[in-house]
């Protein structure tokens, strides 16, 4: 159990014609027992950050500490961390038992019996007890994944580091392992840093998400905060699938003017955004309302291009009837049917739109985000009555 903090952590690599900054003055605090997901596109510095915590890279400057104790100049052995690699990195010549025992043998003074007992115990919780005497080559991808997890769990580390551990699994197994990892992390209560490029994993698994781009931290927050109150244009576009629709607009009085539409803002909103005139309007696909044309304010005409049915919902790609036909995406209920070529009316509800500064990308105004509604527990509510 431990907290982990990175203060001003920077990593530069030598490249042709000067250093390449992989991680740029990163400040991050991870609380005891927290599940933090580092997410970002490839090359954003998330893996480098994890490797700095693991001790596989040393930071060019800045500080990394576990429980207030500076660790970035320690060897991995002294840091009390365990890591799961993307490729699992199991030792192919050792049995599962030996693979799991290796870390304990090398980093602790425990007796062979103690180690064996611990390995067996962890293997049971991971449901790989019967695989202990097999070699990694004889295991399926999912089983290897479990062994890699077991190898890390067995060491009972202060901090658990996972580097894209699910990316080599097929979609179904990945979804299962997501749930299982979350369950395990809750059971063990170990502080966990999880690196992924997959925003779905970030949204579904984390207590908090840290979004990186170009080595810089963009936002840290709960999944709901990152989704509904993105700090900037990058986060808004990165989190969410299908991603948010963006339109370049300029503010003229109370009106947002774009090539395709004119959007009238309420007085209150205008006062929030007055400072800048070049803006980007963002709206999530599920927030766009599709209805028959009624000619009411802030409703625009659009033509349906393609409909992708997902069963529970339909992703509809449309383009504006006016202007140069920019496309955007809307999700509607799976039972509502639209056909290609159909002209419909679309409306952007004002409480659902985000506005970003076109130049800096900073958020100027986020959607109205009410508190999350808690589903009442069945037992207590009936007891109250």
């Amino acid at each position, binding site marked *: 159990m431990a907290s982990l903090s990175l203060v001003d952590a920077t990593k530069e690599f030598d490249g042709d014609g000067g250093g390449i900054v992989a991680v740029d003055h990163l400040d991050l605090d991870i609380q005891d027992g927290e599940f933090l997901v580092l997410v970002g596109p490839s090359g954003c510095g998330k893996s480098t950050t994890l490797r700095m915590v*693991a001790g596989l890279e040393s930071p060019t400057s800045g500080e990394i500490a576990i429980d207030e104790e500076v660790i970035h100049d320690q060897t991995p052995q002294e840091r009390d961390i365990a890591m799961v*690699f993307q490729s699992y*990195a199991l*030792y192919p010549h050792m049995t599962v038992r030996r693979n799991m025992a*290796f870390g304990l043998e090398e980093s602790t003074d425990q007796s062979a019996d103690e180690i064996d007992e611990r390995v067996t115990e962890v293997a049971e919780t991971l449901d790989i007890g019967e695989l202990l005497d097999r070699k990694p080559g004889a295991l399926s991808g999912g089983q290897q994944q479990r062994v890699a997890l077991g190898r890390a769990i067995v060491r009972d580390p202060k901090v658990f580091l996972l580097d894209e551990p699910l990316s080599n699994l097929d979609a179904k197994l990945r979804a299962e392992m997501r749930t299982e990892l979350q369950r395990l992390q809750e059971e063990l209560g170990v502080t966990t840093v999880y690196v992924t490029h997959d925003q779905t994993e970030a949204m579904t698994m984390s207590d908090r998400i840290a979004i990186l781009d170009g080595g810089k931290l963009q936002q840290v927050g709960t999944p709901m905060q990152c989704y509904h109150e993105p700090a900037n244009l990058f986060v808004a576009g990165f989190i969410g699938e299908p991603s948010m629709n963006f339109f370049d607009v300029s503010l003229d009085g109370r009106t947002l003017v774009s090539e395709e539409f004119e959007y009238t803002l309420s007085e209150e909103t205008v006062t929030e955004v007055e400072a800048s005139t070049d803006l980007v309007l963002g709206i999530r696909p599920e927030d766009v309302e599709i209805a028959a044309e009624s000619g009411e304010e802030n409703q625009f005409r659009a033509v349906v291009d393609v409909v992708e049915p997902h069963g529970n919902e339909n992703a509809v790609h449309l383009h504006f009837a006016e202007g140069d036909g920019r496309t955007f995406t809307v999700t509607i209920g799976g039972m509502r049917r639209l056909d290609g070529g159909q002209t419909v009316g679309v409306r952007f509800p004002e409480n659902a739109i985000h506005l970003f500064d076109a130049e800096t990308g900073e958020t100027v105004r986020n959607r109205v985000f009410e508190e999350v509604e808690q589903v009442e527990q069945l037992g207590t509510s009936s007891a109250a009555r």
Partner: protein
Amino acid sequence: MAGSQDTATGSRTIGGGETDWRTRVETFSKSDFVRSFPYWFVPFSLVGMGVYGGIGWNTVISLTDYEGFDRPDYTNLDFSMYAQALSDPWVYLTAKNTLVLLIAFTTITLVLGLLLSILLDRGIRYKEKIQTIYLLPMALSFVVTAQFWLWMYNVNNGLVNAVVGVFGLGPFNWIGNPDLVLGAVIFALIWQYSGYAMVVFLAGLQAIPDDQFEAAHIDGAGVFKTYWRVIIPQLKSSSVSAAVVLMVFALKAFTFLYAMFGQYRVPKATDILATLMVREAFMLQHWAYAAAIGTILLVMALAVVAPYLWYQYGQGSL
């Protein structure tokens, strides 16, 4: 496919034996065995005649009493030559030398090659060039390196004595001293082949992904333990292939010795089965006896290679 065809024709032509026979021939002529015949038969027969035919004929000659310039007499085959060999102290001596050469040369070359490859793999600069420098001796002919080492070992003005002289040792008569000459020959062979072993190991090392090192590092293993427990065990197949090649070279070190000493009779301390065999055959025309020694050499070589073949078989790679 063939089976189902057989049953179909069988049921149709009960009593019609001739049609059945024809279908069988037709099926046979379309089978993979016959159709692939022109491709595998040529190499198979060449290898068969060249290698196994040679071994067989050699074995037959070793059972005769063939000597001198007559024709061999195949009517009276017995093991008298093997009996003679087993009671010949010289055979024991050369067999012992062969084993010493085989084991010392192979082991030291492998260990040296492994160390060199690990050093190179740890990212020494100019890796490519260094690799070429070490591999270069391998490209030289035995005749060249033998002559070259003969000069190096010269008692009076050889480079080796000049070097040990710096430390106040010697001069040693590397070639003339029976206690030193085998060691000197082994050293020269190691010099020539360690580069080869290095290249084989280097290829093996580079096939091991970085995350193996990283995982061991995270698991708390130091550099030595990482290599000893994680990396070197994964070089098993590299070491097996390198070892087999080196052993075969050690057994046929005749070329090197012959080139070094310029005659069939080499110093007693370096006399190995291969030199003895050539001497018996081509100096003394004891054809049958030489053939028997050759067979003994073959059995030794098989005994050396057999455990590795067994290991490969056990791993399922054979």
